[in-house]
């Protein structure tokens, strides 16, 4: 077991929901817990903070078992979704609250408050009341207050969900900057996959009280462990395995590596940006490696997304979403997907090379 950082096994059972997760966060890491609403991510956070009782399991932070420690002695700070700034206190008093509990002298307090406010870029806000602050400012004050308690672990519960899109982007950069400056171990809960991918060192995907996958953002996006993670962390196409023999194109005598079909629900998955779109039959498909070729796909709709076009195509009754850099000139398209761009799933689980014999063998 790692001496530094958090490692926990959380088990709690409720009337219509039970939670059983285990994960670990390294010291100094920023980990995101992501999942749809009701997946248990906020419950996990409250279990770690000690606001909900742990029914069984363990919670070890920096080598110390905290599962029986009362909430106010855990040194785990939390920023709440609604920020929970105390309305009868000024910004200064809010931040001073944990400092007073630590019995810091008045001058030391003032100094710490100054430092924290400049860390969150709110210099000179000491005397403001929380009602006078904008949503973004409240969020920063809540963060400063949490940091003032010098926690061993910082928990952020959807800290940006109450803000508008533009401010969200700016503040998540700020949170990342503040994390890098303080080096504090942080768990960040969100339901926004873009937020998670951009901010986290590591992502923990949860669904229905279980951990679905855990790892760096890139790995989760390109190698989703199951179809839930695949579709939750961005858009994608799911097709039955039977399309492979129909569409596989070999280049020369080279035998492509494709897994053999297995019993059960064998499906393939690929992301829209991996789809190559050919809208002019006279030009070759810009592809020279083995790939799947979907001929005579019908263009159903084309949405302009700013930096690309999102095409919805229909091929032999299957819907394929593709991204294109320009608007297609015809509605009869040929689509191509390289064989290393798609993943195969048996039932719900990702198949790796070691698990399946290949067609070419």
């Amino acid at each position, binding site marked *: 077991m790692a001496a530094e950082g958090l490692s926990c096994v959380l088990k709690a059972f409720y009337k219509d929901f039970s939670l059983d997760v285990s994960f670990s966060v390294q010291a100094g890491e920023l980990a995101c817990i992501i999942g749809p609403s009701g997946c248990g991510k906020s419950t996990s956070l409250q279990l770690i903070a000690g*606001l909900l009782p742990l029914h069984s399991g363990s919670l070890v932070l920096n080598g110390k078992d905290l599962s*029986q420690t009362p909430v106010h002695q855990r040194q785990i700070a939390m920023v709440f979704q*609604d920020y929970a700034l*105390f309305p009868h206190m000024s910004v200064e008093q809010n931040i001073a609250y944990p400092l007073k509990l630590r019995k810091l002298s008045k001058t030391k307090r003032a100094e710490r408050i100054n430092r924290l406010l400049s860390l969150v870029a709110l210099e000179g806000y000491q005397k403001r009341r929380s009602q006078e602050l904008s949503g973004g400012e409240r969020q920063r004050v809540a963060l400063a207050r949490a940091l003032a*308690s010098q926690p061993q672990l910082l928990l952020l519960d959807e800290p940006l969900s109450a803000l508008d899109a533009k401010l969200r982007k700016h503040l998540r950069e700020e949170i990342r900057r503040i994390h890098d400056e303080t080096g504090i171990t942080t768990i960040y809960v969100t339901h926004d996959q873009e937020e998670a991918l951009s901010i986290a060192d590591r992502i923990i995907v949860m669904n229905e009280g279980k951990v679905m996958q855990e790892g760096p953002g890139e790995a989760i996006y390109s190698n989703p462990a199951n179809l839930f993670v695949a579709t939750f962390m961005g858009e994608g196409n799911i097709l039955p395995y039977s399309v492979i023999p129909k569409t596989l194109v070999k280049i020369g005598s080279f035998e492509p590596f494709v897994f053999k079909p297995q019993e059960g629900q064998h499906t393939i998955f690929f992301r829209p940006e991996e789809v190559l779109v050919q809208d002019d039959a006279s030009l070759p498909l810009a592809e020279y490696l083995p790939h799947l070729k979907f001929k005579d796909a019908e263009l159903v709709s084309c949405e302009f997304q700013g930096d690309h076009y999102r095409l919805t195509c229909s091929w032999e009754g299957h819907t394929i979403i593709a991204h294109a850099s320009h608007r297609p000139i015809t509605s009869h398209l040929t689509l191509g997907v390289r064989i290393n761009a798609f993943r195969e799933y048996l039932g719900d689980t990702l198949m790796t090379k070691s698990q399946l014999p290949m067609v070419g063998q």
Partner: protein
Amino acid sequence: MRENNSIQYRRFYRTMPIPSMVVLLMLFFVPLFFTLSSAFITEEGFSFSRIISVFSDPYTQRIMGFTLLQATLSTLASLAVALPGAYLIATYSFKGKRMILALSTIPFVIPSILVVLGFVIFFGNNGFLNRALMALFQLEEPPLKILYSFPAIILAHTFYNFPIIMNLVSSYWEHMDENCEAASWTLGANKVRTFFSITLPRLIPAIVSSASLVFLFCFNSFAIILVLGGGPQFTTMEVEIYRQARMMGNPAAASALSLFSILITSLLLLWYNATQKKLGQSETYSTSHRKAEKRPATLVGSVLAFLYTIISFLFILGPIVSVVVRSFMAAPSRSAQEVFSLKWYRQLLSLEHATGHMGSALGALTNSLLIALAVAVLTVPLALTLSLAIRRKKHTNSFLELAGMLPMTVSSVIIGLGYYLIASRLRGGLALSYTLVVLAHLVIAIPFVLRTILPEYRKIPLTYMHSSLTLGAGPFRTFLSIELPLLKGAMFTGAIFAFALSMGEFNATLTLANSSIITLPVVMYRLIGSYNFQGACALGTILIAVSVLVFIVSEFARGGTYGR
């Protein structure tokens, strides 16, 4: 398995209210136990014989019938006066509308003995209304002779209660989504049709709920019936309980009668709670007021609005103003006209030799102030710690909340009876008697103070407390530095309410007090009984001042919370 410490903060919230719960239950159940035991326990031991004999008596049955009859008629009369007002307030904007709404909260804070006095002074044979009418039409005789009769009871109840219905129905009406009416019009229904098939059915829950409350109040009405009813002819259960216990010297019969009262009151409260629940579910309450507030379109409408304003002003303010005015008037000699005088205040403050019951006025004032102070100081911490536990329950009808509201199931006369029975068992001096008065007031005040503090408590998001805990403060520290400061305003309002409630409390005090215990309302009652109305008015003016204070505080408290 080891006791889980991680929920230690919850244990704090569970244990905090236990002492106050115990105190409340003691204060409530001990007197109730005395009441019920004396209803069931006769010389031969436990028996139903007393109950059976009391309830098979045609006299009792007549009283039960009359109690229900007067409550029904009073409720209907209040509805008849209130609904047009609710309509005007909800649909139109007119001058004086805000004033009507503000004034309509007065009956919530005014003590019933003051209503009685105001009613006598205003509607009496020698009252302001009769004198004005006599002067206006040059009459020899007072045209209105309604005092000490059945109509007087109904009229006083109406005056006292119609603003409650008007207030509740109009505010519900104002927050109703008016697009439903607009939709009905676009579907081809005319305005009258729309009103009867769309608006009225939607209003029914609010009307039923507020009418049930008024019915409950009229059912338990005591001072109004006692004074204005004018004798055994118009007696209700509450008055009969008091009469049997204190005038006929038959507390056992009074206890038996209380059973009926408790039963009906409990049923009414359960019914009222159900209507309140329904009220909460039946409409998607739009937070904004209706946008299309419009002036009365027709001349008739304007005149009606104007008339309604004038009449409700007259009815609500008239009696109160009359009390204040009369208190400053005295006749220099028996035959002379009344002129401005501070005579009654001088007598009240013992600056001048006081006659009759006025002699005990100063003592009553000090007693009332001291009792009210004690009640205010004791009630707030009890209610606060109770709401600490209650707020954590999501459902409003939790056991604790019901327990906190328990004293409402028993009328104040019956609470007084219980304490009277305790007092008659105990041997103690004046100090004990006053302690019992304070305890009785405490029981009566707690539900009201709870209702002031609890909603404010519920407004504090749990995350405030969670934040404080995660920042390293223990549960008690969190309570002191987060919850307590945030509830300061509500606690203050609650204290003022308790103070005013105790100052004006008449029913329980009269029922439990022996002749040596004097409070302001009791002396007022004796002054009214001995026809010294002006002296009563001077005392009444002090009560009015207290009520005005409560009124101002409660109006301020509405806007005084943190912008959340």
